[in-house]
């Protein structure tokens, strides 16, 4: 089987950007490059949903064709996993829908197929989700207010690694923090298949003042290893969707 690679950026932040380019625009750029951007907004214990300026979190994810979620720190582990997997399924679903439209015409998508056929397509989506290779660049906001949340972030990333490494497909993770000391972002861990060694990573962080989310995202886009196009992986599954649903 020709395996494709899905690329994602997972942005973990607790506030609004206040420096540099508009992150929503950079997210749109990411979409053009075939990289999905997922955003998790972390609330402090005494903060209520909605009262915070976390709307940007949703806007970035929507623009970057990813998934967003706003949570309290104690729900982070499950959320990180859920968001990553949901975004994977969503990307694969998007690609399959494109193929369906291509084959069936008339803007036909999975939702337009009769339920039985839909089940067959879903099996393909599940199968690809299990075997596809995944590259996740984790971008962690380390501005001052994030200080007390970093241990939880670390734990949830370890948990994410357990979940994704239970799949058949290969995984690559990299962890970057922003703002960096000299540049917009700073590398904490280079591409690696497992996050077991993450333990020491967050200790050398000095949390600083500004939140340059836009510039950080922009730099992150160039950090993915060059690979061939992900559309290739669809070729194999054509036989499942030959029959038209109309």
């Amino acid at each position, binding site marked *: 089987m020709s395996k494709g690679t899905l690329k994602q950026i997972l942005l973990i932040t607790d506030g609004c950007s206040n420096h540099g380019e508009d992150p929503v625009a950079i997210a749109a750029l990411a979409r053009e490059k075939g990289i999905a951007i997922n955003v998790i907004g972390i609330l402090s214990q005494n903060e209520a949903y909605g009262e915070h300026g976390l709307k940007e979190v949703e806007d970035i994810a929507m623009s970057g064709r990813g998934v967003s979620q706003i949570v309290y720190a104690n729900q982070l582990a499950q959320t990180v996993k859920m968001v990553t997997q949901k975004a994977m399924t*969503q990307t694969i679903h998007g690609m399959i829908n494109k193929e369906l439209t291509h084959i069936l015409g008339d803007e036909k998508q999975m939702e337009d197929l009769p*339920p039985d056929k839909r089940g067959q397509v*879903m*099996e393909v989506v599940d199968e690809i989700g299990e075997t596809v290779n995944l590259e996740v660049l984790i971008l962690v906001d380390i501005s001052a207010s994030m200080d007390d949340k970093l241990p939880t972030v670390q734990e949830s990333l370890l948990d994410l690694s*357990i*979940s994704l490494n*239970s*799949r058949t497909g290969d995984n690559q993770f990299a962890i970057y923090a922003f703002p960096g000391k000299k540049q917009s972002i700073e590398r904490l861990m280079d591409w690696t298949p497992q996050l077991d060694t993450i333990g020491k990573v967050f200790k050398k962080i000095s949390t600083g003042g500004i939140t340059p989310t836009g510039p950080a995202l922009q730099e992150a886009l160039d950090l993915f290893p060059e690979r061939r196009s992900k559309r290739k992986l669809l070729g194999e599954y054509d036989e499942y969707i030959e029959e038209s649903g109309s």
Partner: protein
Amino acid sequence: MMNTSKNPEVKLTPGDIIVGKWNRNQYTILRELGAGATGTVYLARGNRSKVAVKVSHDTLSITSEVNVLKHLSKVQGKTLGPSFIEMDDWVSVKGALPFYVMEYVQGESLFEFMRKRKEEWFGILMMQLLRDLTDLHKSGWVFGDLKPDNLLISGPPPKIRWLDVGGTTMIGRAIKEYTEFFDRGYWGMGSRKAESTYDLFAVGMIIINYAYPKRFDKKEGGWNQLQKAIDQNRWLKKYRAILYKALHGHYSSAEQMREDLLKHYSAKSSVKTTTACRPTRKSSPSVSPPVSQNGRYKGKKMKKRRHMTETVLIFLFLLVFYVVYLMGQTM
């Protein structure tokens, strides 16, 4: 456009009617049974009987669940999950919404049931659960999100049933859905790969949960913490050997764990368990009352049809006789 995550959940109220776009079946909503991450389940009235209907905005996960339910109903002679009836789309004001219809399993949750019973029932239900898991694993699937909330005791006779198959995963893949307390990955005691040992870990945690109804948070995690919890509870301590094996993935099949539990209960007091075990055995032939009812129903139909053909034959015979008689008269 993909709108898998941002659609607002549609709330249905009792009396609402949903109609399938493809099969044109109609369901009247009676009340809400529960709401989860992937949609809401309602009790509804279908053509003849009460059914459970799950409505969701998330086509992907709902389709995935239907696939699982269909696979489960193929496991021969056993009703493992709720039996699947149909899937369809309901065209509402807000657009097409996928829904699926399944058997309405009536009963109490595991711990609710146990509140009124003697402790030995718990062991029996766990053995029932392990027997069903043996069948499920043999058919190539792992339950995944195994926890008391997903188990229902139907009956009488009491029989453990599974409710939510959202976590049910093909063996070898990554577990789709789980709950932290029952997840071996969370406790740092293994991967989230769908293997029979993953479910058996969860069974172990259900036993621990029975002793600690409020559950507890992870501190240092691993066997160290769980071992302390086991040793600090007098009831739980008796299960230590079984729990050790279940939590470490030492049981190679659910059947092995069931046998150990059976031995444990038999050893405790042989007189008590023989009487206690009988209901389990009794319950197995009546596992699927709806099926046998259906069979009876069909039987009646068949009999009726036979009556009909008999009547028609006699009538024809008389007619032929009469014609011959008439011809004889005219000649």
